[in-house]
């Protein structure tokens, strides 16, 4: 009796919590799952023979993979879309390397050596988050104009290299990506380094290792998970970025990335199928990174919950 009475409200209660999350779940089902399925339905669907618009096919049994195969062939062709993919990898890799090079010392310092100034530094590190991404890019457009401050400083110091930075060259894009995304790299890395076990580092010192040895053999290996998580969270949006180069190089074809091609095919032309196929290819490529981040997040959730 007591058992039954206890069980029924328990089930009830569970249903109540499910009910509470229902609006959010339904929202994401309708506006996240269905849209993603629509991408597949367009990529594997038909093209209206007269209007040349997408004619999505919703039944997976009737999906036609020929358009996708054509796009994959183009992606594998280094003279075609392959070039764009390689370029994207190079830009993202370069920007990530710069993020590590600049971001690690900063995160390390604020997490471990900032002392009483830590609050101030944290506020300064968070500040870029509240400044619109495109405003930050606009700031660089101002600086990199032919008569802007960057060229003026170069001329003033009599350095070589004074030129029109915004003419569609890769350095502007890689620096732009680095500048744009480095806050997203530093903060999670800071959070990871801050939790790092101090005793292990002290133990290394007590056992006679020099600071640089301790850093190489203790601190750095311990920061690997944080570095990985920070890299993943920075790289994911960079791969889909099309506005940084679109803005800084006025959409020069010499700096085109995957995102530019996707945008071009979906909105600029009447080839939505190609665009949708590229989205699926990009998602498949990034799936490993996304899965890694999800696993880490779920684990962290559990650690907090218990």
């Amino acid at each position, binding site marked *: 009796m007591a058992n039954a009475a206890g069980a029924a409200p328990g089930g009830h209660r*569970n249903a109540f*919590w499910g*009910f*509470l*999350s229902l609006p*959010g*779940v339904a929202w*994401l*089902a309708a*506006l*996240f*799952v269905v*849209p993603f399925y629509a991408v597949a339905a*367009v990529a594997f669907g038909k093209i209206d023979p007269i209007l040349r618009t*997408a004619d999505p096919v919703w039944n997976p049994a009737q999906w036609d993979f020929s358009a996708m195969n054509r796009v994959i062939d183009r992606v594998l062709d280094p003279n075609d879309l392959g070039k764009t993919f390689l370029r994207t990898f190079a830009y993202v890799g370069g920007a990530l390397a710069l993020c590590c090079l600049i971001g690690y*010392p*900063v995160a390390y*310092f604020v997490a471990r*050596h900032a002392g009483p100034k830590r609050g101030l530094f944290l506020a300064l*590190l*968070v*500040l870029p*988050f*509240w*400044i*619109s*991404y495109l*405003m*930050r890019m*606009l700031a660089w*457009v*101002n*600086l990199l*104009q032919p008569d802007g*401050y960057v060229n003026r400083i170069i001329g003033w110091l009599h350095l070589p290299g004074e030129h029109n930075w915004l003419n569609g060259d890769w350095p502007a894009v890689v620096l732009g990506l680095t500048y744009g995304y*480095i*806050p997203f790299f530093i*903060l*999670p890395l800071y959070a990871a380094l801050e939790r790092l076990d101090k005793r292990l580092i002290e133990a290394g010192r007590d056992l006679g290792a*020099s*600071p640089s040895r301790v850093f190489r053999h203790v601190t750095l290996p311990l920061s690997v998970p944080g570095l990985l998580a920070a890299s993943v969270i920075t790289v*994911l*949006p960079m791969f*889909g970025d099309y*506005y940084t180069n679109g803005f800084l190089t*006025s959409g020069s074809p010499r700096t085109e990335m995957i995102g530019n091609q*996707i945008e071009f095919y*979906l909105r600029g032309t009447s080839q*939505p199928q190609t*665009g*949708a196929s590229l*989205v699926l290819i990009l*998602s498949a490529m*990034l799936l490993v990174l*996304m899965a890694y981040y*999800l696993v880490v*997040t779920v684990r962290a*959730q559990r650690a*907090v*919950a218990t």
Partner: protein
Amino acid sequence: MSRNRPGQPARGLALVTWLYVLWSLLPVLIAIRISFNSGKSRSTFQSPSWRWYFTDPLQSVWHDDSLRQPLRNSLKLAALTMLITVPIGVAMAIGLQRWRGKLSKASNGLMLFPLVTPEIVMGVALFLVFTQVYTSVPRGFTTQLLGHITFSISYVVVIVRGRLAAIGPQYEEAARDLGANRMQAMRLVLLPLLGPAIFASLMVVFAGSIDDFVISSFLSTGASSETVPMKIYSSGRATATPALNALATIMLVFTLAAVGLAALVMRRMRMRQGGGDDVQLGNMAAVG
């Protein structure tokens, strides 16, 4: 020799950190200064003026409707996104924290996905769904609003769940023991305790919506649904005047005011409740 002196490497690191801070913020400060330029140049500052804010009768933000319209759109979009997303997200966070079972796990996984999906993927997906499936939804502002809410929900859930885990169930249990029913316990005990997290969510959603370019742009139908980031993108490389910098600066002031207000309220709430927690900051860092 020098490497064994404590504080020495830290000084080098401090220098790097200060240089980074300078590099990350100085360009924006220069851009703000240019918005007060009296001349037309966006690279050379002549003398200070309010010309591009309101004194120029044609080209200032106040008088040029092609600048005022995006400002209106962005603020309206961010405010509505905030008001609709936060209740949905808070309810979802409480639900997911306590709901048990397979469906709950699946829902949790679904909730996390938007956080890692590149914006362009979500933008394309929403663009296609509104052009192919939900064709009766009026395109433009309405679809932008629906899109912004979609990518904002998960932020709220993550922030609120962090706080829920820190609070634990004991306060609510105490309220139940004292005779409150479940709704009363939630309304009178849990929601006030969630206050700081709710405020943090409000400002994160507001700032996220203001900052968004990709989703707004994919779901826009032209000038009538242009937002500030879209305006910066479309005219930043063309023949823009410092009025564009003024527009960006106004947007920044709105965001910082919202964030500052929320931080103030959060601080007061936390002081009243006693005991600060770093969970908030950690979450915001994780959410980005």
